[in-house]
């Protein structure tokens, strides 16, 4: 794994910005209205209610912390790993709702429209998020194993 050329560094930074912005935004909306988020999570019919409430109170802050963590070099790797795992979990949950033909909203960004078309769209988005975080994770990991210490991408180091 050699040195990364400049375009890749720029693209990686852009992807990181987009990922971070999406998760900070999604987390903030849900953290401001945990009751609405609890109702959205409950609609998936996957968890017992107390677990739904606990998740509704906790998950938004995990998303915010991960989103912010992407821009702190010391915890970047952990944040990326968590984002990857979260996106996978979201993908499985949305896919299960879609397969069970539930007429619910994703709940990803607070209350929204419902229906199979909306879920398909949300599914596509969570798969994209998983792919993007996997890409960054692979790059991050590659840059470390390669031995050649590259400076953190411009902007990413500002903290």
């Amino acid at each position, binding site marked *: 794994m050699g040195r990364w050329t400049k375009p890749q560094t720029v693209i990686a930074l852009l992807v990181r910005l987009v990922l971070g912005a999406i998760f900070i935004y999604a987390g903030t909306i849900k953290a401001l209205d945990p009751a609405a988020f609890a109702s*959205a999570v409950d609609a998936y019919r996957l968890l017992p209610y107390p677990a739904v409430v606990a998740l509704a109170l906790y998950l938004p802050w995990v998303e915010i912390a991960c989103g912010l963590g992407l821009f702190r070099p010391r915890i970047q790797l*952990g944040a990326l790993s968590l984002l990857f795992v979260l996106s996978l979990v979201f993908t499985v949950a949305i896919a299960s709702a879609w397969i069970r033909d539930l007429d619910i909203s994703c709940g990803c960004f607070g209350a929204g429209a419902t229906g199979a078309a909306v879920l398909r769209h949300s599914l596509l988005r969570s798969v994209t998020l998983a792919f993007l975080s996997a890409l960054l994770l692979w790059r991050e990991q590659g840059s470390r194993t390669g031995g050649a210490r590259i400076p953190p991408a411009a902007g990413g180091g500002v903290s």
Partner: protein
Amino acid sequence: MMDTRKAIFLRAVRQAGLILLIALIAAVIAAVFRLGRPGWSRAQAMIPEVDWTVVRNWRDPVLLVDARSAAAYARDHIPGALPLFGGAGDEAMAALVAAWHPGTRLVVYCDSPRCDAAQSAAGRLRRELGVEEVFVLKGGWSAWVDGQNRKP
């Protein structure tokens, strides 16, 4: 090579743990200081469901709220129902507020027994308008249509 991979994995796990801990602290602080947090029992959070046969016999005035999509509402809806367009439009909300008077019961419906739009819209109406008398129509639009077909 294996060692560096293991080291990276451990570092990722350590950092992830730190992030989860920070998020937990933030979540606990937010939960303690916020008043409108959800209750721990489903019965507390869920809006009660009522059957159409029950609603029909209510003496109190009833305002029906259609929580399905705008397209579905345009195609057909329960007579007198106001649209909420999937629970997203603020204008629809304003029209509802204008139509609602104290003592009027709100009955929200969506497509079928498997839809959640009515529950979330009803919850939002109760939280944001402070209306206590909010209900969800059991079985939604499909149950109402069945009821109409069976009647004659």
